[in-house]
């Protein structure tokens, strides 16, 4: 299991794709928003939590189709399916690798981007906690979407269409928590809901992803 994780990590570092791409995309979104809504710092500060969450979500979406597509093309997926690794473990590892290479860097970079958007400092902690709690769910849900569309020729667009509605609950509670934090309100309720969704997703969705992947391999 560790071997697969290490391999995916190596690939992400070397292929020149996965790793920095999400971060760069996040930065571009954050840079473009002021051009779209104007440079007033009060307005930017108000919408900063939402923008950061949306940016993280889109950056995450960007790299989803790489989760299985490359392994599918070169036949690794067939070979992994006949290896001792259970399919459920395989999809979990894939999701974890995706989170480590995409989600975690986004979480770490979020404070810097929050600075660019004039977010009040007391909002940093809830923002980071909400992203830390929410992005794993994004990766796991995204892995399910990637498993659904693996092997489809025009899978990329379909993947977004399938995954985005599934992102709604996570986005709502995550952004709500970040927003309440920035405005100095109590964040307990959205925090618990977000944590609940993430835990439930991580616990249950790999079974669906594995089932879907088995269907796609046959």
């Amino acid at each position: 299991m560790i071997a697969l994780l290490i391999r995916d990590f190596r690939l992400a570092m070397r292929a020149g794709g996965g790793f920095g791409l999400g971060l760069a995309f996040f930065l571009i979104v954050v840079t473009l928003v002021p051009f779209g809504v104007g440079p007033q710092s009060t307005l930017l500060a108000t919408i900063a939590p939402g923008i950061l969450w949306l940016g993280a979500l889109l950056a995450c979406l960007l790299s989803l189709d790489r989760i299985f597509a490359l392994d599918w093309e070169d036949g690794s997926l067939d070979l992994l399916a006949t290896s001792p690794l259970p399919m459920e473990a395989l999809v979990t590892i894939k999701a974890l690798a995706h989170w480590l290479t995409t989600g975690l860097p986004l979480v770490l970079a979020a404070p810097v981007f929050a600075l660019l958007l004039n977010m009040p400092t007391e909002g940093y902690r809830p923002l980071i906690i909400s992203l830390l709690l929410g992005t794993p769910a994004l990766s796991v849900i995204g892995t399910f979407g990637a498993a659904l569309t693996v092997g489809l020729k025009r899978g990329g667009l379909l993947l977004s269409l399938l995954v985005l509605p599934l992102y709604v609950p996570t986005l709502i509670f995550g952004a709500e928590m970040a927003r309440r934090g920035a405005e100095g309100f109590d964040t307990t309720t959205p925090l618990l809901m977000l944590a609940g969704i993430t835990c439930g997703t991580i616990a249950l969705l790999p079974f669906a992803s594995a089932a879907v992947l088995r269907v796609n391999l046959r």
Partner: protein
Amino acid sequence: MGLTVSDLTIARGGIRVLEGLSFALGAGQALVLRGPNGVGKTTLLRTIAGLQPPVSGRVKVPADALVYAGHADGIKATLTVRENLGFWAQAFGNSDITGAMEAFQLAPLGERPAGALSAGQKRRLGLARLLVTGRKIWVLDEPTVSLDVEAVAMFASAVRAHLAGGGLAVIATHIDLGLSEAQVLDVGPFKAKPLEHDDFDGAFL
């Protein structure tokens, strides 16, 4: 250790391709599958490997004993030969790859990125993977594609050593591997007959 296939019917894309197929292999035996293109050899091998369910019949394989090698080798272009092989060894719970590197004369290429290999060298790397898995039953789909004569001999001796060690192999191939001890099965006669046209349910299989 053995592989038993009994009264197997398989389908590709919802259409039956082969039916009534039975054979059994014991330790040290090899089976070479022959038949024209598109008759369903790949589908048969994937069914034996458990990647797809049969329409009917049974495939009896001991748990965790089988390794499958298809048309693609599962090689990552940005990893070196050693890293590629090392990963598959670890995935199957082994660590020693030197034997496999030698058997297919990959040692001089060890630190080269797999993307820089020729097609034949890639294939050799893909076949070396079989050795590092330590599995007893090899299910191979056209293993000799893009191999030169010398490499085919390498492969044949690897198979022979595998069989001598109590292993099994099911190989779909068009060329003569020089494996005199292998049984040959022509799957052509097992081609599925079309169902009755007014069988409405059958149309959904």
